[in-house]
C-alpha cells in the first residue's frame, strides 16, 4: 500500500493546494483517509455499495468546494469526517422518510456498537491513523456502556435525544447527561491529538 509518506506535505498544506486547484492533493487526502471515511459511511448507511457512492460524492464535493475549508474550525481530517457524517446522515434520513421511520432505525440500532469491518477487509491506512485510532479506542473504552451507546446512537445513527431515550429506555435527562459526560471525557483524553 502506498501511503502518505510518498508526499511529505501535511494535511493543511494539502487542503491549501487543493483550493488552488491541485488534483494531486485530493488523491493524497484520498489515500490517507478514504479508509476511515468509508468505514464511517458504511456505519451510518449500513450498505457497502451506497457507502462507496457516498464516499465518491464527498470527495467530489471536497474537490469542487475546497475553498469552503476553514482551518480555524478544525483539522482537515476533522473537516472530512464531519462533512462525510453530515452527508451520510442526510442520505440516511431521506431514505428513512421514504421507507417509514422506524424500519431503518431498528436496523441502525441493532449494530449501533458494531465497529467491526466486513470479514476479509484489511485496514489500509493504519500507518497514517494508527496512533490516533488507538487513542480514540482507548478513550472510548474508558466510557461507560450507556455513555458510549447514547453517543453512537446520536452520532452514527442520527437519532435525536428523544429517539435515543425511546430506543434505549434511558430517561431523557439522563441521555443528556450521558452525552455531556462522554464528550467531556473524550475531549480530555484526546486533548493532545488535534
Amino acid at each position, binding site marked *: 500500500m502506498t501511503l502518505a509518506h510518498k508526499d511529505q506535505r501535511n494535511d493543511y498544506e494539502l487542503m491549501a493546494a487543493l483550493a*488552488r486547484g491541485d488534483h494531486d492533493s485530493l488523491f493524497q487526502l484520498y489515500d490517507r483517509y478514504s479508509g476511515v471515511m468509508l*468505514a464511517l459511511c458504511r456505519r451510518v448507511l449500513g450498505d457497502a455499495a451506497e457507502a462507496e457512492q457516498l464516499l465518491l460524492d464527498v470527495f467530489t464535493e471536497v*474537490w469542487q468546494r475546497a475553498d469552503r475549508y476553514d482551518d480555524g474550525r478544525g483539522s482537515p481530517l476533522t473537516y472530512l469526517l464531519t462533512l462525510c*457524517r453530515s452527508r451520510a446522515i442526510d442520505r440516511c434520513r431521506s431514505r428513512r422518510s421514504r421507507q417509514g421511520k422506524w424500519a431503518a432505525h431498528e436496523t441502525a440500532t441493532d449494530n449501533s456498537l458494531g465497529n467491526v469491518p466486513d470479514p476479509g477487509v484489511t485496514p489500509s491506512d493504519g500507518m497514517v491513523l494508527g496512533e490516533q485510532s488507538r487513542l480514540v479506542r482507548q478513550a472510548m473504552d474508558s466510557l461507560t456502556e450507556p455513555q458510549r451507546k447514547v453517543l453512537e446512537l446520536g452520532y452514527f445513527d442520527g437519532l435525536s435525544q428523544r429517539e435515543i431515550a425511546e430506543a434505549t429506555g434511558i430517561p431523557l435527562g439522563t441521555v443528556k447527561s450521558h452525552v455531556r459526560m462522554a464528550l467531556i471525557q473524550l475531549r480530555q483524553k484526546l486533548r493532545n491529538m488535534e
Partner: protein
Amino acid sequence: MQCEEIQELIYLEAAGAADSAMVAAIRAHLATGCLACQATRAEAMLASAQLPLNLAPCPPSSKVKDELMRRVKSVAASSGAMSAGHPQAPTQKPTTGKLVMWPLVISSSIAAAFLLIAVLGLQTNQQLTNKVIGDVTTLHQLKKSLAHEVAQTNAISVAMKNAITSEHHKIAVLKTELTTAQGVEKMIGSPAMEMASLRGMPPMHSAWGRVMWNGKMKMWKLCAFNLPHLPNSKTYEVWMITAHGKKMPAGLFNTSSKTQSVMMTPHVPPNPHAMAEIAVTVEPAGGSPQPTGAVLLTGRIG
C-alpha cells in the same frame, strides 16, 4: 437561556442528537458573542469528530478512485482549465510563447489542407481527397491536444509562481520566529530570569499561562493556552496592575485558531518594579484604555 442550559444543548448538538429548535437556540446564543459557550462548542465538536476513528478503516474498491479521477479530469478538461471547478484556481490566459503559437501554426496548416482538398476535388481524385480529409482530422485532434497542453502548462506555471511566493513568505515567517526564539533563549538562559503563573478565571477555567521576565535584559514574554481564537471584532488585552490597583494597557493579542495558544511580548510600563499583577481581558478590536471585559487570566508578578 442561561449558558449552562445552552451548553447542555451544545453537547447534544455535537453528538448529533439535537433537534432544529435546539440548534436554533444555540445559534442565537452564540450570536451574542458568548465566549464560554463558543469555547464549549469548539471543544465538544472536536471530541465528537474523533468518533469515526474508533471504526476499523475499510479500503474502498479501486473503482471509487478511478471514478474520482475521471470526474476530476473531466471537470478540468471541460472547463478548458481548472478554473470552473475552483473559484480560486488560476485563470488560463494564453500568453505569447512557443507553445501558445503552435495552435496558430496548425490552424494555418488546416486552412492550407482545405485549399488542397478543393484543388484535388476539382481533379476528382476521390482516393487522395479521402486521405487528405483523414490528415485534416488528425491535425484537428493534434490542435485540440496541444491547446489542452498549453492550458495545462499555463496552469502549472501559475501554480509554481504561487508556490514560490508562498515559500518566500514562509522563509520570512521562519526568520522572524528564529529571531524571537534566539531572544527567548537568551532571556531564559540568564540567571536574572523570573517567572509567574497565570490562572484561568471563570468561565475560562481551562485557560492558563505564564509570564517570564528578565529585569536586566528588560525582556518580557507572556504565554497563554486554551484561550479560544477571537473573531476580528475582538482582541485579548494584557494589563499591568500596580499594587494600588492602577491598570495600564500592556498590549493586544489573539490566539492561534489551531492551537488556541499564543506567545507575545507585553509592552512593559517604564517602572516595572511597581507592578504587582498581570491580567488579560477581552476588549473590542483595537483595545481599550481601561479594561471593559471580565478578567480571564490573572497572576501576581510583584
